[in-house]
């Protein structure tokens, strides 16, 4: 808020915000289902969330998960229930159904999203370009604690970003959040030291290689399976790390691309440069 706002207005605003918060918090108790009685068994990622695939398979065999008496939509087509972990279709082979749709059916769309991000990053770097780097003199350097702390925290954040995009087909998450987490780790390095600059050539190489990898995976699908961005790998057992076909490969490519792009954007926005 502005510093010349009268005290009264500030207090009224505070009371207003707090009132909304109180209403929000206490609506929780009327709107939420009871904690011990939530039935989330109707979601597929539940199997992975429980981290207990054997139990899930038992549930399948007993028929508690799928309703055997379900009426099929079309009577001329025999009703075949989807069996997780056995079919070769990608939709049943990935624990996270959303990612299977995003990467398989709408894989071309995702390629377009990556391109949009690439164009945005290129635009930022075009606008904020500068050859010479300005050495700041009046700015206050961060202390030793921040330097060492961000350096050690960077390791954890970097590995966690990799964890998020490698497990994209098992848990919510995937390439875009994973890349953003890695880029925020790089932002931490910028905050913790004065005059940090990432290896720009390395970032460019990573970005290009991962973008190329996406297209190459698509072309392999075109050659092998007669369709661009089609799955060409076995789906494996649901819930395992090595499952769900090529989703993991594509998410690794997206994660590296988004991470290096956003790091380059951070670099361009944070560093003062002199135009020549």
């Amino acid at each position, binding site marked *: 808020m502005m510093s010349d706002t009268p005290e009264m207005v500030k207090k009224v605003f505070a009371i207003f915000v707090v009132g909304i918060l109180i209403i929000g918090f206490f609506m929780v108790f009327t709107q939420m289902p009871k904690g011990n009685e939530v039935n989330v068994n109707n979601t597929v990622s539940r199997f992975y969330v429980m981290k207990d695939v054997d139990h899930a398979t038992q549930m399948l065999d007993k028929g508690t998960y799928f309703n055997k008496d379900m009426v099929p939509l079309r009577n001329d087509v025999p009703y075949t229930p989807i069996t997780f972990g056995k079919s070769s279709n990608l939709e049943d082979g990935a624990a996270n159904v959303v990612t299977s749709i995003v990467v398989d059916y709408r894989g071309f769309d995702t390629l377009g999203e990556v391109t949009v991000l690439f164009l945005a990053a290129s635009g930022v770097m075009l606008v904020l370009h500068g050859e010479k780097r300005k050495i700041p003199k009046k700015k206050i350097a961060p202390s030793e604690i921040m330097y060492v702390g961000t350096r050690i925290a960077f390791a954890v954040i*970097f590995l966690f970003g*990799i964890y998020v995009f490698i497990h994209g087909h098992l848990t919510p998450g995937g390439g875009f959040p994973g890349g953003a987490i890695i880029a925020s780790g790089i932002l931490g390095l910028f905050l913790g030291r004065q005059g940090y600059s990432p290896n720009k050539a390395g970032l460019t190489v990573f970005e290009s290689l991962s973008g190329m990898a996406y297209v190459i995976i698509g072309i392999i699908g075109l050659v092998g399976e007669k369709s661009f961005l089609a799955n060409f790998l076995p789906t494996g057992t649901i819930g395992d*790390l090595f499952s769900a076909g090529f989703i993991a490969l594509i998410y690794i490519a997206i994660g590296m691309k988004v991470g290096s792009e956003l790091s380059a954007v951070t670099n361009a926005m944070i560093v003062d440069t002199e135009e020549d």
Partner: protein
Amino acid sequence: MEKAEASSINRYFYAVVLYFFLWIILTYPFSIQEWEAGAAIAFTASLLSYKELSISGLKNIKRIGILLFWYLPVFIRELIKANLHVAGLVLNPKMPIKPGFVKIKTNLKSPVARVWLANSITLTPGTLSVDIEGQYIYIHWITVGSTDVEHASEEIAGSFEKILEVMFR
């Protein structure tokens, strides 16, 4: 800012070990597939970032024993004491505070050790490390006991400094 103590190979392998260990923790229900992927990731990811992670390399692994069996019990005791102190302060209607900024001196050479000391000071009763400059740490003390540098150092940092001196030798 700091000079590397160990060779790059040494630091690289420390990063590999640490990343592999962290990966196992993050993907806890042990499975051989996660371990295979973890090994590959540890080798490649530490190639990218071993320079940021450590300066003294594999020596750090030896410190974990001291960390677990000597540092951690003292730290947890101090943390609980600090919180009881805060609770007494906040719930007391009169709030008996007598704050001040004091300066203490440490004999620790390694920057990482000094940062550990400063962070431990932040989480112990009534003290908050505000700034660090060489061997001096500036501290906000909520109930000032002594303004003398030597005396204040002994009172605030004494118990941790001994442990950290052994640990970062």
